């Protein structure tokens, strides 16, 4: 009698052990980069890449519907890959993109934009990476979608590919 209960207990324990670790194997136990999604974008002050006197602060005070923030750098190779998507977003979906130029040389950054086109409504400078950290960034490239209330509704770490592109388009519809 007693041993039957023990059996049942152990059996149950091992089935649950198996199931839990089975799911652990399937799921990604690594870092969750989506912490900031659903919260308000922290305030940051940026000065323009083109004209340092021209300053703005984010979240934008203009009551836009949605806008994008993209952290990029001329030395970052994946940024080149995602650039056409940014251009497409601006041209085809008329969305304002605020660029944050991450730890870059001004001349290189300007060169990059001249060569590949400038999809940005405004480009702010983050010379030491602190602005990026302020908004919870991990590095370059990174893209945020912000709504009218200044809430982050979408965040993507890494370059935009066609899947992310579709997601962003769906979000800003």
């Amino acid at each position, binding site marked *: 009698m007693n041993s039957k209960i023990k059996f049942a207990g152990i059996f149950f324990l091992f089935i649950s052990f198996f199931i839990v670790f089975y799911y652990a194997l399937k799921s990604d136990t690594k*870092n*969750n980069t989506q*912490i*900031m999604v659903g*919260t308000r974008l*922290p305030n940051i002050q940026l000065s323009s890449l083109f004209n340092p006197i021209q300053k703005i602060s984010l979240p934008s005070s203009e009551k836009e519907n949605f806008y994008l923030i993209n952290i990029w750098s001329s030395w970052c190779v994946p940024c080149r890959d995602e650039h056409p998507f940014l251009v497409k977003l601006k041209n085809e979906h008329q969305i304002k993109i605020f660029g944050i130029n991450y*730890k870059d040389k001004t001349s290189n950054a300007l060169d990059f934009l001249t060569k590949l086109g400038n999809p940005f409504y405004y480009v702010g400078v983050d010379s*030491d*990476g*602190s602005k*990026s*950290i*302020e*908004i*919870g960034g*991990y*590095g370059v490239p990174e893209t945020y979608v912000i709504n009218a209330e200044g809430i982050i509704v979408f965040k993507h770490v890494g370059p935009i590919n066609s899947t992310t592109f579709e997601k962003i388009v769906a979000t800003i519809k």
Partner: protein
Amino acid sequence: MKNFLFLLIVFLLNQQNSFALFSQDREIKIYKNIRCLACQGQSLNDSNSDFANDLKKVIKEKLNNNETDQEIYTYLTARYGDWILFDPPVKKSTLLLWFFPVFILVIGIFILYKRTVFEKSKLS
């Protein structure tokens, strides 16, 4: 013997202010508690990657502004989640982490107590 114990007590009482020694290297202590997100399992203190250095700079500025450890940790967890702290905070989802070992300990003490007798003659 009594004198000796007295000396010991006096000695231990004098230690009250000794915890100041702990906080001397507060900066390193904070760095050690923060995971370098761009590295594999290293703390900020052990890493000199670009990300780690930027984050150190941000934290140093906050220390200079006289922010408390807690304020700094709150700032970081709001942005990067509890993942960034090596010392897991005590909260609802970590209750078992902190208190299950204590539970095991209590059970252990209880079992040992139940099984212990004072003299051999009392063993049935």
